[in-house]
Each structure stands twice: as structure tokens, then as C-alpha cells.
């Protein structure tokens, strides 16, 4: 089933600045899709369009086969959660537990159930020891984990990560990547859309859409995108560490066809040495 279907979508902030230019793509339920592109390519605008925070000028967005419009935006938004770039600007309440509960309060969830839900999702993102902490006592990565817990607690079908790791240090990024991996394992029906600059994050996804100046310049599944690193470089992207090493070793004659991650690569190299 298609979780998100975008057809001929166009959006412009003004007459001279077309942010999204006639793009179409489908995202299947349970998949993990990355949208990558340079600054100003329209990635974040696309996230806001999908979540109904802004309305398109032309084209159509379908969320689980229902066309998104002004009338049903609040209803459809209950299926989508979004984690924004700046961890500080999405921390609405004064403490971790209050912030996780914010969305639940908006959904009018029974207060008697909230405490357990908050604790469950705080545990999921490893923030259960920080429930009474204020945002000023947390690192960027911890605040971003709280934002993710807030979205997960709402039991959304789709989660959009809008450059959710771009303001984090390497440790914070690694934490969020591991959390995404863990979420994929624990909830196979959850659809995740990652809008990112981070090629390592995009490398984890099943499908990649490359945007430039509001247009899709390439889209394809993981292998289609990452099997041709020269093309990726020509589009102005860094290449993922693992894919680069694998390609270089393959060029030197090593058979690494069935090697899919760094651990398998290390094992293979140890066997060969």
C-alpha cells in the first residue's frame, strides 16, 4: 500500500522562487525513504507540504489513498509525525515528560493512561532517566530523542525526519541513526521519510530521492543509487564510507558482491588475510 503518493506537486514562495517544481513519487508503507539534496533544493518545503503545514500551488498529495486538502488536513496529520531540524525549537514544554505528553494532550488522551505512555516511549528512546529534566540540561541529541518519543507516543503511521540530525554532533547523529534502525526492526509497518544532507543516513534507506532546485534529478532503490558512486559524486554528494571502501576494494579485484555492511566487510577481510 502507498503511504504517500505525490503527483505533479508544485510550490512557490513567490513568483520568482519555485521551491518544488512538478515532482512525483510514491512511498510504500513500511519503507524507509531518504530525500537528499543541497541547501535550497526544496527538501524541507516538501516535508511541510506532506504534513499540510503549507498548501501546494498545484498537484496532489495522497496519504494512504486520501487526497490531502484544507478540510482533512487535521485528520490526515494524525497519521504523520515530524521531527524538525532544530531540537530547541520543537521542545514545547518545560520538562522531558511534559514534552512527550504534549501531543497526547492535544489528542485528548485520558490522563490516567498518559503516564504509562510517556514512560514507555521515553524508555524506547532511552530517556526514561531524564523525565523531569529541563531542555537546558539536555544535549542536542537527547532533545532530538525526546522529539522522536513525542512523535512515537502519538502512534503515527508515517514519521518524517526533517534534517533531524543536521544540528547534532557525530555522537548525536549516530544515536539517532541507531534509533531509526531500532524503530525499523520493532515496527515494520512504520513508514519513515528522512530529509537529510547526511549521506550515511541516506545509505540506511530502502529508496532515495535526489532533489535539486525543486526537481527530482534521480530516484531509485538503495542499490540503484549507491552502485554508481561516480554519478553520486557528479551530483555533488559525498559518497558513503562503506560504499566507498567496498567500491575501491572491488576495483582491486576483491569479490564483495554479498557484503552489505561494515561488519560483514571486516569479517570478509579477516578471512582473506
Amino acid at each position, binding site marked *: 500500500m502507498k503511504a504517500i503518493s505525490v503527483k505533479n506537486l508544485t510550490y512557490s514562495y513567490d513568483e520568482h522562487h519555485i521551491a518544488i517544481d512538478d515532482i512525483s513519487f510514491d512511498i510504500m508503507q513500511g519503507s524507509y525513504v531518504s530525500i537528499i539534496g543541497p541547501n535550497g533544493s526544496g527538501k524541507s518545503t516538501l516535508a511541510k507540504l506532506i504534513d499540510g503545514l503549507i498548501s501546494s500551488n498545484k498537484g496532489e498529495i495522497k496519504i494512504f489513498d486520501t487526497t490531502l486538502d484544507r478540510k482533512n488536513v487535521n485528520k490526515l496529520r494524525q497519521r504523520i509525525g515530524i521531527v524538525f531540524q532544530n531540537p530547541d525549537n*520543537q521542545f514545547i514544554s518545560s520538562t522531558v515528560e511534559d514534552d512527550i*505528553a504534549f501531543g*497526547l494532550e492535544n489528542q485528548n488522551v485520558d*490522563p490516567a493512561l498518559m503516564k504509562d505512555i510517556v514512560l514507555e516511549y521515553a524508555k524506547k528512546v532511552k530517556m526514561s532517566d531524564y523525565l523531569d529534566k529541563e531542555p537546558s540540561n539536555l544535549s542536542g541529541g537527547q532533545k532530538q530523542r525526546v522529539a522522536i518519543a513525542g512523535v512515537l507516543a502519538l502512534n503515527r503511521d508515517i514519521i518524517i525526519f526533517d534534517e533531524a540530525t543536521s544540528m547534532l554532533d557525530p555522537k548525536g547523529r549516530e544515536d539517532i541513526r541507531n534509533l531509526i534502525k531500532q524503530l525499523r526492526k520493532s515496527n515494520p509497518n512504520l513508514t519513515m521519510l528522512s530529509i537529510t544532507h547526511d549521506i550515511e543516513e541516506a545509505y540506511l534507506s530502502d529508496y532515495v530521492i535526489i532533489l535539486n532546485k525543486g526537481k527530482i534529478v534521480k530516484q531509485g532503490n538503495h542499490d540503484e543509487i549507491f552502485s554508481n558512486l561516480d554519478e553520486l559524486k557528479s551530483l555533488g554528494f559525498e559518497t558513503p564510507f562503506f560504499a566507498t571502501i567496498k567500491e575501491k576494494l572491488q576495483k582491486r579485484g576483491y569479490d564483495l558482491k554479498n557484503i552489505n555492511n561494515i561488519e560483514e566487510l571486516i569479517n570478509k577481510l579477516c578471512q582473506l588475510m
Partner: protein
Amino acid sequence: MDSISFGRYVNYDSFIHRLDARNKILLLIALMIMIFMPFSTWSTSLIFSLLYFIILMILMGVSHCSFKSFFKGILSMWFLLLFLIIMFIFIPNPSLSSVPLYTFNESYTIYWDGIYQAAYIFLRLILMMSLTLILTSTTKPLDLTYALEWYMYPLNIINFPSHTIAMMISIALRFIPTILDEAKRIMKAQESRGVDFSRGGLFKKVKAIISLIIPLFVSAFDRSQQLSDAMEARGYDPNSKRSRYRKLKFHLKDLISALIILPIVAFIMYLSIAQNDLDIIYTLFKVEVGF
């Protein structure tokens, strides 16, 4: 910028911390009324004010309020003290001219009444400050907001947006430290470009502050847009029904504290209204102090 710690919540588990925020607001208002109840004799007014001061200092100690930030706050009011001294001591006022203290060249006299009036007003301001400090240092901003919303709730019948106002206060309180951090960052960035915030004349200082204010405003507006997107994305709608994660609870200790404080306030009000000319020093010690 570091001095702006006055009134920040102090995470401690004191008796006052455990009181219901609504009760604390009620008692704060009652105590403020008590502080402002006047007596016609200066000695009585001052003795009562000093008594309140001692009690409030004890309460501040019990609730682990920061005395450092409190005294810093008082020091920052030096201009007000100066204004009071000029107003009540050096400007001749016929209503404050009964007991002379010192006469210059037989033409200009300073009166005890002026000194007492200035001291009394300043002392009352200090008392108000300490009361507010006790409230904000012992109450989480969110609980304070919920309590304010609870008090504003009856106004909903005239379509007063009590929830929206409470949410605005809550967000403002939440973002004070974030905006202060941002201001510090901008100041450091501007200092690294040669802006001097600490030295120079008035014109130079105004110019330096503009270099802080403009980026700070731009960033605050940007933040507010992102925050509103984040709130909307998490389903916030001020007009729809919301449940509440935290519930304020009125406990027995709230009742006891109210039953102790409110009668005292009522008694002081009675004394102030019915026995306004009470001279506490004469009543207790049979000594005439003369003012």
C-alpha cells in the same frame, strides 16, 4: 546577562515547593495585601515591615531561594532608592514635616518623616520582591501557568482566551533561558567582530546594543515560526478539547498553610483599618518615640 537568574525555579523538595501552585498564588496575593496595609504611625509600619522581612527571609532560606540573586536584585534597584531619597528627603513636603532631623543654614530642613517614608516604601518593594522570588523559585513554570489558567477559567464565559494566554506564558517562560543563551552567543560573536558592550559612551553603547537586538529579534521570529510548525505538527489546536498530563492537587498541607496565613492577614487588615493609629512601641513598652 549572567545576573538574570532572579526568580528561576530551584529544584528542591521543601514544604513550600510541595504546596499547590494555586494556593501559593492565593497566599501571595493575600500577603501582598498585608504588606500594603498602612498604619498612621511610622514606628508601627516599620516594625511590621521588619517583622515581615524576617519571616520572608526565613521562608526564603527554607525554600532554598538564591539569596545571592535576591541581593543582586536589590542592588540593581539603586536608582529607585535614589529617587525615593530625593522625593521624600530632599524635596520639601508639608505632610512629611513634623519631626526635624537637621537644619542647614536655618533655611532648609531634613525631617525624620521623609526618611521613614522613603525607607518604608523601599522596604515594601523588597518585601514584594522576596514574595515573588519565593513563589517563582518554588513553583515550576508549568504549574504556575496551570494555576493562572485555573484562576482565569471563569472568564471563559465571556470568551476570554484563558488557555491561549496560559500557553503563551508557558512558552515565554520555557524560552527565556533559550533566548538568553542565544543573546550570549550573539554577544560573543559581535565581540569577536570588535563590538564593545562594556565600554564607551552612550552613543557607542546604543550602537553595540542594536548589534545584539536586531539578530536576536530575527532569530526569535524564526524560532517562533519553527515552534508554531512543531506545535501544529503535533496536533495543537487552541480551540479543540485537550486533556491535561499534570493535574494540580490541593492537599491537606495547602489547607493548613491557608488556615494559618489567611487569619493572620485578616488580623493585620483589621488592625490597619480599625486601629490605624496603633503605636506598637507605646502599647508594648510604654515608650513614646515621637513619630
